[in-house]
């Protein structure tokens, strides 16, 4: 059979998409390693290695094919490593990565068929499996910069203060590139950030007894974990809906849940919980367009 039309193509390939996202994460990851020290590097390496190994092993065992080339396992490993607290034991990172690839992605049929973002699935799995090991514990950063950074959520990207601001900026730059190249749909992070910022600003001060419109907006937005979830995890094309309206609702839902989990649930990993919750609603959101079979 001859090659089918069209004979030209435009835009990134699947692998190009995955590698572009990974490349956009790289500067922030490198900065995080500089700030947090060798432990962070070991954490990243473990997560990526475990992710690649399980993709290879299961792919070969189940389908006799190697799908490492599509780049999605690399990205999953990177996201897992970036979302975990640096002080967690390495086996936790490995367990999160293996669960992400083996259970969340491959057991549903592999790339494109999972209904939850694999990295977030893995993160959730270890969150509830080893809560004590992951519980927030303040620890001065032991990085190469010799700067003692406070920790916002303990993750590689979680430094607070000025160091954390750099992390967030680097993530924002990477995210901006993805949005500009339309690798990520702008509707999702836009609605995510807008809904989260609005709710935090209006209602965020209530639990502390400050009254409305007194929420601490900069502190809520500047954490690396939030930027990671909004720009790199919620925008995963596989687990986010298609169509403008559905994407806006999806992003807004993420923002709202994130606010509830952070301010009322007091969970540092709130964004990583909010996105998988909204992932579950994607099949419903896909039905949003009124006209049948149309946008």
């Amino acid at each position, binding site marked *: 059979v001859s*090659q089918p039309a069209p004979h030209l193509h435009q835009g990134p390939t699947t692998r190009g998409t995955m590698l572009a996202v990974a490349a956009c994460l790289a500067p922030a990851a490198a900065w995080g390693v500089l700030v947090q020290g060798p432990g962070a590097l070991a954490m990243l390496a473990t997560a990526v290695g475990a992710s690649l190994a399980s993709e290879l092993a299961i792919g070969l065992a189940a389908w006799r094919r190697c799908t490492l080339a599509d780049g999605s396992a690399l990205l999953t490993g990177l996201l897992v490593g970036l979302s975990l607290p640096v002080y967690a034991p390495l086996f936790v990172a490995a367990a999160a990565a293996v669960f992400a690839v083996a259970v969340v992605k491959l057991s549903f049929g592999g790339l494109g068929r999972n209904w939850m973002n694999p990295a977030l699935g893995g993160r959730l799995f270890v969150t509830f499996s080893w809560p004590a090991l992951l519980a927030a514990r303040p620890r001065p950063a032991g990085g190469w910069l010799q700067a003692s950074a406070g920790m916002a959520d303990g993750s590689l990207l979680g430094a607070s203060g000025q160091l954390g601001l750099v992390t967030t900026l680097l993530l924002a730059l990477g995210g901006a590139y993805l949005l500009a190249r339309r690798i990520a749909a702008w509707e999702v992070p836009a609605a995510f950030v807008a809904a989260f910022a609005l709710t935090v600003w209006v209602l965020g001060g209530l639990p502390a007894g400050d009254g409305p419109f007194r929420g601490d907006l900069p502190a809520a937005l500047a954490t690396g974990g939030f930027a990671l979830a909004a720009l790199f995890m919620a925008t995963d094309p596989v687990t986010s809906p298609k169509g403008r309206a559905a994407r806006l609702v999806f992003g807004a839902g993420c923002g709202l849940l994130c606010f509830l989990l952070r301010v009322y649930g007091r969970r540092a990993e709130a964004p990583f919980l909010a996105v998988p919750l909204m992932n579950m609603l994607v099949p419903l959101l896909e039905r949003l367009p009124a006209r*049948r079979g149309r946008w």
Partner: protein
Amino acid sequence: MRAAPTFSRGGVRPPERKLPAASLPIRKACVPAEVLLPLRQHAGAPAACLVSAGQSVAEGQPIGRARAPLAADVHASIPGVVRQVREIRLPDGTASPAVLIALEGEFSRTGRGRRPQDWRQLSRDQLLQRLEAAGVVDPDGVPAAARLRKTRRAGLLVVNGVESEPYLSCGERVLVEKAAQVLAGAAIAASILGAGRVLVGIEASKPDALRAAAEAAEAAKAACAFDFEVSALQGRYPLEEEALLVRSLAGRRSGSRTGERGLAVLEVGTLLAVCEAVTLEQPQIERVVTVAGEAVRHPGNLKARLGTPVSALLEECGLLRAPARVIAGGPMRGFALEGMDTPLTKGMKGILALSRREILPAARTACIGCGRCGEACPWGLRPDELYKWLEHGETAEALQRGLEACSECGCCAFVCPARIPLVQGLAAGKKRGAA
């Protein structure tokens, strides 16, 4: 000349890659020693063969007679002897009988100038008869006569001067060099239709073609009673789709691809053939074809005899190296050729020898659900969903979701990061749905 908007939803902007062919005058291709003429160069059933092996034929002599709806006569494009009548495979993969003619004897038409006749003396039936006798076929396979006869009492003729597929420039060159004949063909078609208005749509990115068409339209307006209007369209692919072109030009939501809405659409190359068929009684035995691609040394537009092998045309333009893919037609809708002995046919607008760098092959992966296909679809469909329904054998569900509206323009597959053969899947589903 007026500026017109384009269709609003979907579409893509592929790289144009029309130079240098679009800026060079049409060249005359060498007459080949042998031509292979398929008896089906139209949408309908193959024409009945009128010749047998060993028989001598004159230039322009009918060798196939239309016997079915949407069929057209086929003529010998060179004088010679019929060597063989055999079954061949056309670029689209279907089979057709074809007549192999070896060059011999004298050219009875070429080089013998004829004085154009005044078509205004002819009746509607005589005009249609001449179109049928000349076997004029629009590139989509519908014979011009069938298209004009079917839409009786139409008020509007649309001249399709849009070529938004990359590389192709044969229509543009025909307009630049032969605008007067094209518009004469349009006047003939309009008078057959009984249409009072002729709308000519050309992309704004082709100023030479627009100027030539506007000048010819002024002249034609003075000569006959039709209201010619040339529009510069802000185009993107697939503006040449009839429904989109009509919507852009006439501003009405005419979803018709079959012309039942009181209008007919004809392409410029077809109108040139219409003009020659009526005023010179010239059968359609030649066409202008774009030969281009990175593997071609001298890209250009060639006026070549129908039935000329693709290999001869590529050789004439100088093949630099082994091309990664040779395509009959445009890069968006054309067919990859397996054999280079495929003949030039009435609807073939381009012969492209593309290098690997132009095609950028990539591995197919699973659908990652990015939704780009739906954003690119000019018909507002969700190609990814339709493909998945069809993959699971749910043709009825796919039909209910609008599969019928798919025109196989290829926008969805053009932007697909996973390189899923969406067009093939949807086309196969449509065929199953029709059966």
